[in-house]
């Protein structure tokens, strides 16, 4: 297991050097119930909704949400959550890209947006463009390989979260 995290940067095309490889997550992951220890921790969405009163505004709290989550379920928390993890149970389930975009562009979420699950090298650039700044890769070796994905395609036609203008408005064509 490893994480790829994007360093703070401005708009524009990314390279692999904009990302760092991290072996151990700085967030712990809690179950549906049980004691929550100090420090950054991710809880399942169900738990956040259930224990909302006691968790509200806790610093360094993250939530893990299934791929079919609607934005509305998260809007009450967007202002203070430190991380949202969106599950990609199979890489073919592309709902997380739209949820990520909505979290960033519609709800203005500024915390960490993390993709977990069946996250493959081929999706890395799409995830970044959809607003994800952390990718959880199942194996460390794969994570090294995944970084190279960011160097493969240097031109993007359309606007997305990472580039708010389409190509013809960014460059002279």
């Amino acid at each position: 297991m490893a994480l790829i995290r994007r360093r703070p940067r401005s708009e524009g095309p990314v390279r692999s050097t904009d990302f760092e490889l991290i072996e151990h997550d700085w967030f712990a992951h809690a179950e549906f119930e049980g004691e929550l220890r100090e420090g950054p921790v991710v809880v399942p969405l169900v738990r956040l909704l259930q224990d909302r009163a006691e968790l509200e505004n806790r610093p360094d709290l993250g939530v893990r949400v299934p791929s079919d989550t609607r934005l509305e379920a998260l809007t009450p928390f967007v202002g203070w959550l430190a991380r949202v993890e969106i599950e990609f149970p199979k890489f073919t389930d592309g709902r997380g890209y739209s949820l990520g975009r909505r979290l960033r562009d519609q709800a203005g979420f500024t915390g960490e947006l993390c993709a977990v699950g069946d996250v493959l090298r081929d999706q890395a650039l799409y995830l970044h463009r959809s607003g994800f700044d952390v990718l959880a890769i199942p194996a460390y070796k794969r994570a090294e390989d995944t970084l190279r994905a960011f160097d493969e395609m240097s031109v993007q036609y359309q606007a997305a979260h990472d580039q708010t203008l389409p190509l013809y408005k960014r460059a002279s064509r």
Partner: protein
Amino acid sequence: MYQYDEFDQRIVDERAAQFRDQVRRRMRGELTEDEFKPLRLQNGLYLQLHAYMLRIAVPYGLLSSAQVRKLAHIARTYDRGYGHFTTRQNIQFNWPKLEDVPAILEELASVQMHSIQTSGNCVRNVTSDPFAGAALDELEDPRPYCEILRQFSTFHPEFSHLPRKFKIAVTGASHDRAAIAVHDIGLRIVRVDGALGTEFWVGGGQGRTPLLAEKIRDFVPMRDLLSYTEAVLRIYNEHGRRDNKHKARIKVLVKEIGVPEFRRRVDEEFARIKDEPGLVLEERELDRVRAFFLPLPYDATATGDLAALGLHKDRTLARWVKNNVLPHRRPGYAIVQLSLKAPELPPGDVTHAQMDAIADLSDRYAMGMVVVTHRQNLVLRDVKIADLAELHTELTALGLATPNVGRASDVIACPGLDYCDLANARSIPLAMAVQERLRPIEEEHELGDLFINISGCINACGHHHVGNIGILGIDKQGEEFYQVMLGGSHTEDAALGKVLGKALTGTEVVDGVERLVTRYLELRHDEEETFLAAFRRVGNDPFKEALYGAHSTTASV
């Protein structure tokens, strides 16, 4: 036609390099087949019955002569000497070696071609009217908007893992030659109070649950083309079914939640994003792309009488003009259709030698361009009427002048079980047998428009649902059988065919189609009444009886 700038070129070059690396890793075992399969599919590389198949994108069916020559070279060098044109205006090669595909992609990139998004759950080739730019009834050339949608949808990060494939078609004429009614998004360009925009249709499609598209909006201004499309795609990405592959197209979503609710969700999203600078389609981009599709340098002195040519004393020429040649919006010019339905080759196939010859003919007679149609034929779009006789002679020598475009022997067939892993039955031998049986009838009678479509399976790549006669291959206990349906139509009076009765063997189908055509000849009012019109007038029964009546015992399976 559109010319790549440095950005377009870099995209296809980098894509080819990326795939080269992916193939290398697969062949060294660094990628498993499960990991590699989605990657090769995203480059249009399928694994079929006997070999790989590479599907190459031909945006809105438009090819330059240089591109056609390159395709000939690829067929010759990397394949078995021929290519196949598809019902979505693309071209397929059936025998590439895996290790050669990176080189093929590089060769394609050198002529501004690619195989991006010709497979997978993403937005596929945006198709259009093969006569765009030349048709008499054209209100607005649809191709600039196809090109804009192509770029918008290429590697769109949010919509590369849709519930299922997504097909867009655009028409700019009053007669719809792009079949927008059976596409996921179908656009008809219109002008309202002087403003240019599109009618927005959603939810058409063939396959297991054939449905005609619903009109979601009467008018979307051009400025909002991309934001409205993005709204539709986002709603589909979020709400489309992912539990069942056969219920995952947008047509099922529209049907299940109903048009008013679908429209409400799209409009809500559209309202939120319509003014985003990322999506507003500015005039300067419209101008930039339209500039590639300005009227060609036609010869203002060109003249000719197409109608007279159709009555020429050389009856072969006359017949070819009447069947395969159409009037052009420019005086003195004509639209020439090349039939790829000759007796010698499977429908839609072209040899490398033919491709090279077509490229030459295109340069000499047709201003350097060739267009692929949905009926697996080709078009030389801008030919001087004065050159038609000479061109006809050349095409005849190449086997490309069969005078049957839109006629009974212009049978559309998917590759079927001879090639395709998904198929239940073969379609090519059936198509060729039907053609052979109908040819003498065609010679003797004017059959008029008669569209026969054959699909080897429910995926309907042969578009059998919209054939006047549609034939669907099915598998019964490991053997090939065929269902026959009547009354489909692919134009603006779109309709889906209805199955006539029990499935038949291939031989029975050939006999049966002959009897259907004979029955049509018997009961039509006159030569002007097409097969479809006659069917709509008299209904199922006379045709059902023709198909099954004489062989009621053999028809029972």
